[in-house]
């Protein structure tokens, strides 16, 4: 099932399916190692529409909720 990253429960491991949005966001995410096909783990989700903390390739990245909702991921 494809959902957006902002809706994923903390603790789950998901596979990046697609990144919505323009060139800017795609390139920024790819620089930080987030590409379609990669697996990442959602570590924490801030309260009150706060950001999402993910770990990918042994690195932690914080994504604002708006950014996270443009990252589509596959969950089981």
């Amino acid at each position: 099932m494809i959902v957006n990253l902002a809706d994923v429960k903390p603790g789950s491991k998901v596979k990046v399916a697609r990144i919505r949005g323009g060139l800017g966001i795609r390139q920024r995410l790819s620089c930080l190692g987030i590409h379609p096909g990669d697996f990442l783990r959602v570590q924490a989700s801030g309260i009150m529409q706060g950001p999402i903390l993910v770990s990918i390739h042994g690195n932690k990245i914080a994504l604002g909720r708006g950014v996270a909702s443009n990252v589509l991921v596959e969950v089981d």
Partner: protein
Amino acid sequence: MRIALVGQPNCGKSTIFNSVAGYKAITSNFPGKTVTYTVSKMTFQGKTSEIVDLPGTYSLTSFDLAELEARKYLLREKIDVVINVIDASLLGRGLELTLQLLELNLPTVICLNMIDEAEGKGIIIEDSELSRILGVPVVRTIALKGQGLDQLFKTVLEMGSNPIFGKHLTFSKDVEQEIQELKEQLEDNNFSKKFNVPLRFLAIKLLENDQYFIGEVRKKNFEFIKMVKAGQQKLEECRARTSDVVISSERHHLSMDIYETVVTITKPRMELKSYLDNIFMHPVLGYISLIAILYLFFNFVFYLGNLLEEPLLGFFYQFLPLIEEKLGHNLLLFNIVSGIIQGIAGGIAIVLPYLFPFLLGLAFLEDVGYLPRIAFLMDTFLHRIGLHGKAIIPLILGYGCTVPAVMATRILESERDRLIASILTTMIPCAARITIIFGLVAFYLGPKAALFVYILNIIVVAISGKILSQMMPEITPGMIMEIPSYHIPSPKVLLAKVWLRMKEFIVIAWPLLIIGSIALSLLKYWKLEYFINELISPVTLLLGLPIAVGVTLIFGILRKELSMIMLVQALGVTDISLVMNAAQIMTFTIFVLFYVPCAATIAVLIREIGGEKTVFTVLFTFLIALILATATRLVYYVFL
């Protein structure tokens, strides 16, 4: 010989730079602190070379201003050897930049830094294999501990006299074909004369839809863009993805392949620091610990500063009556000497006691890596005022000094975010204003009152942010930020950093303080201060402050500390509470806190946001200061 340090943000470039150049570039544990390059001479084994510390850049496709600066330097300047610093614990990602750097055909040495960190994570790197694949030397270092740096610079020097160019690694066949084709078209159109970058590099960047190179090509040969678009389209057709994604995925896969070849994964060491974020970034515990940490920080600065201020002030002021006795009260000489003493005393007794513990505490939080955590926690609140989490970093640095803080706004992606963050940063009490809050409010009215000033300040900054973002409606792009691992700071580096920042005060501010004090003495002697005070009297009268305070407000624009130190002198007493009541002390502090940025800040604002917006900032902050200080006066009058 010119050596350039290139690498992704937070991989240790500045640490390596400082270890050979002396502590000149501020290092901290957050991605993007180096916003401009620093150049220094270095001598190694009797040979002198020039070394450049460039801002971190994730790739050679640039977004923010700091990354752009790094790329511009790389493409324009003549560089003899590139040291590509890679955070070994993030090798896979670091290689993506390396692959692009090798395309530039510059002699390159790979520096695998933070090897200890990588091994802690269970990443064991076969560096000889990496060197074989890339075709350039690889050196392992732990820059923070100074390990491997001798070997690194030995290799760099050898490279300087005997350059080695790395290999160009090839992408998949279909992509490679497109690159080759475009490269040939570039050759046919004489682009090698128009650009001083290798054509293969240029071809890849164009296929990647890099806006800078597309623009440059368009300027030089408008028709050629059609060929670029055709190439992009072919890539898109065969991969069913946009061409930028095709290239970046190719590079990603190539890097991951290399990574898997050279790395053996073992069991990671269990370390306390991997659990810290379960508390510090927890949705509830994170905020509780943030408040606790800031509270401890505040108390640390207050108690240490307070402990030092009183005896130091007492020491200096015992001389004044003695000199008065010797020289007589009305002599010009007495006025000059007492001005000098008050200037020196102000610097040592009022500013330094608070500045030192504050800068030490800030340096500690920076180097441990706590600032990105604060950005994470504050993102949701900053969204409410129209910014995003990363904007907290310049704001926090603003508590140190506004000038570097305004420059730090370069880590923000959008121009409008940078503008709002710059204006808000000028309203954050910098170390100079902190000495006013501590030396005046905390000293005379108690630490609770000082804490109140801080909280009020945060509320005002938040409201101002809201107002400014309403004035400039635009959706902020949202936060994308790396959260680095925690590091245990080295005491040597901490002290070097505190010293670098204090030196600024001692070398620039202190002489100004002394000159200011003398100037005030002379103004008083010739009874000229009267005119200045008259000029400022509309403000001082409105705020209910003694008329004599006027002149200190003018000096305060030069350096914020001056307002406070000269207050003592202007009022002619050492104990301010004798001539100003609690309401006046509070009103004065609130006004000084917000009104008009200091001269150095105005200069950096003009550079970063332009003259017009700087004028706006000055008026905006002045208006806020006036409103708040008047309100403070009224509140005291009515309720207290």
